[in-house]
């Protein structure tokens, strides 16, 4: 599996191997020897890498493979929000058809004298809320379902 770098929207699979004291970097189906004498300047800012060589600059982003493939797949599990523990519903902040953003509080539950906000795991639209205020539920009980996201 290769590392994925993106320049704007374009994605490039990349891997590197040692070659003596230098490296050989494979981009798509070509490879480049990169030694200490490459003459480029590089500045790193988290997963963003800026590089300068001979008057040209480029900004790329490194994508962690797990995160990349997770976000490219169908997020089916994120569709049903289940109860992390048994408890009672004390507030319902949403309803079917409502558009929500990641992190929005959909419901508040109470369990063992603790209140927990149940938040939307991703942007989307609520398909259904399965519980009402005052209702009790078990652990893993479905609390709300989001409309299946388009891939």
């Amino acid at each position, binding site marked *: 599996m290769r590392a994925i770098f993106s320049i704007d929207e374009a994605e490039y699979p990349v891997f590197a191997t040692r070659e003596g004291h230098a490296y050989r970097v494979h981009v798509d189906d070509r490879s480049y020897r990169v030694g200490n004498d490459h003459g480029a300047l590089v500045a790193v800012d988290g997963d963003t890498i800026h590089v300068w060589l001979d008057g040209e600059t480029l900004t790329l982003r490194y994508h962690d493979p797990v995160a*990349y493939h997770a976000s490219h797949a169908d997020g089916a599990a994120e569709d049903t929000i289940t109860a992390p523990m048994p408890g009672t519903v004390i507030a319902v902040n949403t309803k079917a058809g409502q558009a929500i953003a990641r992190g929005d509080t959909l419901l508040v539950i109470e369990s063992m004298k603790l209140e927990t906000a149940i938040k939307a795991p991703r942007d989307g639209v609520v398909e259904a809320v399965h519980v009402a205020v005052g209702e009790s539920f078990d652990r893993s009980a479905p609390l709300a379902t989001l409309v299946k996201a388009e891939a």
Partner: protein
Amino acid sequence: MRRIDSRLDTRSDEFRQNAAHNRALAATLKQRQAAARRDRPARDIERLRRQNKMFVRDRIELLLDPGTPFLELSTLAANQSYEGEVPGAGIVSGIGIVSGREVIIHADDASVKGGAWYPHSVKKIVRTLDIAIENRLPVVHLCDSAGGFLPLQADLFADRYLAGRIFRNQAILSKLGVPQVALVLGHCTAGGAYVPALCEYNVIVRGTGAIFLGGPPLVKAATGEIVSVEELGGADTHTRISGTADYPASSEEHAIAIAREIVGQFRLPQKLEVERITPEPPHYDPDELYGVLPRDIKVQFDAREVIARLVDGSRLHEYQPAYGTTLICGFAHIWGFKVGILANNGVLFNDSSLKGAHFMQLCNQSKVPMLFLQNITGYMVGRDYEHRGITKDGAKMIMAVSGSEVPKITVIMNGSFGAGNYGMSGRAFDPRFLFMWPQSQISVMGAEQAANVLADIKVRQLSREGRTLAAEEINAIREPILEEYRRQQSAYYSTSEMWDDGILDPTDTRNALGIAISAALNAPINRPHYGVFRM
């Protein structure tokens, strides 16, 4: 260390004809391997696509570190069984690099009979895990099997080294501190459910992966309960409720990325302190191996010519060069690793047997892995030799081989007949890896010899009954025996039955050995300890 002085005349007719012959054999091997790897009925490929599954080899390519080698084992397992409908026994097995670590991979091939486990499949998985145990190699399982092939259950279930051995081996690996990770990419049913359960880590793909001891139909039949695959044993059930699975993945690519990250967490092994120098390619062209090996198995060749085209710089330090000349013993390097080589150059005599036993002790004393290059018709027979103790001397070789603690690797260059196979570390003597060459033959004795013996018995039996046979009638008895013998002594039969870990193109042997030796050095080497050498 001195470079071997090659006496080969690469321009002779002999050389040219051998080369043409062996090249053709190598080409055939490549074709048969390619077919076993990729030729599938269209409907099986189509089914994979419908199920949203990747082809097993694409999974492996994604799993492996790019730019690294992969030594596939027993590609042609079961090639002569089940009417050839279970290529590779439906399993892909091999040693590769994942996240910088050497691992051995066991991958179910769902494009072959839905990934069902045939008796040969079970044998291949058990062998894969035996290799893992002996070499302390972490294992990555790519699980996608329909379960045991029920019609042949008698040959895959009850005995000691059958299906149960898979799970026993997994448990022993864990006991030895060797981690395993399973990717549940299909259904792991019944026994198959134990594969992920017995791994330290496992990843399950939502929607396609499932783990259960009994699937929905079985559950309904057993208790009447009606339950879906997902609810019974899908990703969310096992990653959120039961804790049987560790990481949910939303696609196979996601699962493989997670698995790579997991393997990246494995401790880097403390590799054995074995001599390793900077590698050097052989001085002589390995391609010339095709010309060294004779077209007729009865023709002798100098094993030094083979060694010269396998080892670094073609350099060999030969031990006892003047004594026991039918067995070449010496030290060389392969991909920088120091190895002790024992190679047949004729029949084994008293002196060569003693030399071999002694040299094996030398290798064990200095923790040098051993490479056995077999081309042996047997030990010398005859009164003189028996009086000098050839049987004892052969026994000493066996004792030395069996008591060795250093890794042994065996390559059957040409013939491996009878007891010669034993002293030269045949399969029963636990070499870490054993490979054949395309023209190799292995049987208790040569085909001609065996056919003659058996025909002879038949003729004498018939003559006792008062019948004499004409030449054609004798032939008619002899020919079928010869044919069957030839079939069962071929490298392809051996590899079908997994008496070896794969047939190698001779020019691939150097790389295979480099990978094999490196893998072998993940296990500790204990002090050697032998039984009694009959003196």
